[in-house]
């Protein structure tokens, strides 16, 4: 069984799980089950990331999404899903309409994607076509480790681009600034979320 076949097999498995779970999320009327299927779908996506040699992103996906975000969602489900609200049904007509539109939408998206000749783009942008630097400086599949380049990129260094590049070409910039912005953003969001969730309760107590 060649690596290709293993890759294909794993891809098929993860893809089916991810898509199927996603569809199940839509189809399910029970909020708890929806949460379960979502975890499945996100986890399968993480698998896909691993297949794509994005080990750090995949890990993050598992940790943050599956471990953090979904737990958060489940908290929300538990806080709100009291009694009658666990199942909120939609009308069948809505379902049919949503399904129709979904299929059309999918057709549209995929026809758009399919209309592009990715071969040209891939070939032009293939590791070989991209230039020596890329193949020399960053090759995830060969190195199997994206953590360091990612970390460097976040602190503003791009060894995958700058190493071996023409000395006169301008230096690539890393993601230091977006990283910082996102950090601050996170902080603000946390405070804001805490405030939103808390303020209402206090006002309720005041009302009471």
């Amino acid at each position, binding site marked *: 069984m060649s690596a290709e076949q293993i*890759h*294909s097999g794993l*891809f098929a498995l993860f*893809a089916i799980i991810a*898509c199927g779970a*996603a*569809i199940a*999320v*839509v189809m399910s009327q029970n*909020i708890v089950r*929806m*949460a379960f299927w*979502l975890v499945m779908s*996100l986890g399968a*996506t993480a698998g*896909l*990331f691993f*297949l*794509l040699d*994005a080990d750090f*992103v995949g890990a*993050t*996906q598992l940790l*943050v*999404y599956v471990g953090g*975000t*979904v737990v*958060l*969602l489940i908290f*929300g489900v538990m*806080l*709100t899903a009291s009694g009658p*609200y666990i199942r909120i049904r*939609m009308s069948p007509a809505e379902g049919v309409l949503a399904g129709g539109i*979904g299929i059309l*939408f*999918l057709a549209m*998206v*995929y026809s758009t*994607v*399919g209309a592009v000749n*990715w071969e040209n783009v891939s070939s*032009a*942008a293939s590791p070989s076509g991209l230039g020596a630097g*890329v193949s020399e400086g*960053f090759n995830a599949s060969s190195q199997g480790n*994206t953590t360091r380049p990612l970390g460097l*990129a*976040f602190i503003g260094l*791009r060894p*995958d681009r700058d190493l071996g590049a023409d000395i006169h070409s301008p230096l690539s910039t890393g993601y230091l600034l*977006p990283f910082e912005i*996102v950090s601050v953003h996170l902080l603000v*969001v*946390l405070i*804001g*979320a805490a405030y*939103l*969730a808390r303020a*209402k309760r206090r006002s309720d107590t005041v009302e009471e």
Partner: protein
Amino acid sequence: MEVGLNHYLFVGAVMFVTGVICMASKRNGIGVLMGVELVLNGANVNFVAFARYTALGLDGHVIAMFVIVLAAAEAAVALAIALNFYNNHLTIDVDRGDELRG
């Protein structure tokens, strides 16, 4: 069958559309949030796939990282909003919250 870019893109598209459908059809506010997560994930799949198969390279990973983080932040805020909504309306049915009707 060689697994190529198009396959990943198809998976991403399915997740995206599923997320949109989820957002459009779920009356449960949490369900809507889940749809959002699905949409984001669909996009993430595409980013990472492009990083692997095109010259996007490490940038696709970086953006995927941002998306994940922001999704987490979004989830936190959205949940807080959902809780507020629940406190105000004593339900999580988004159809009941039509105060913004023109």
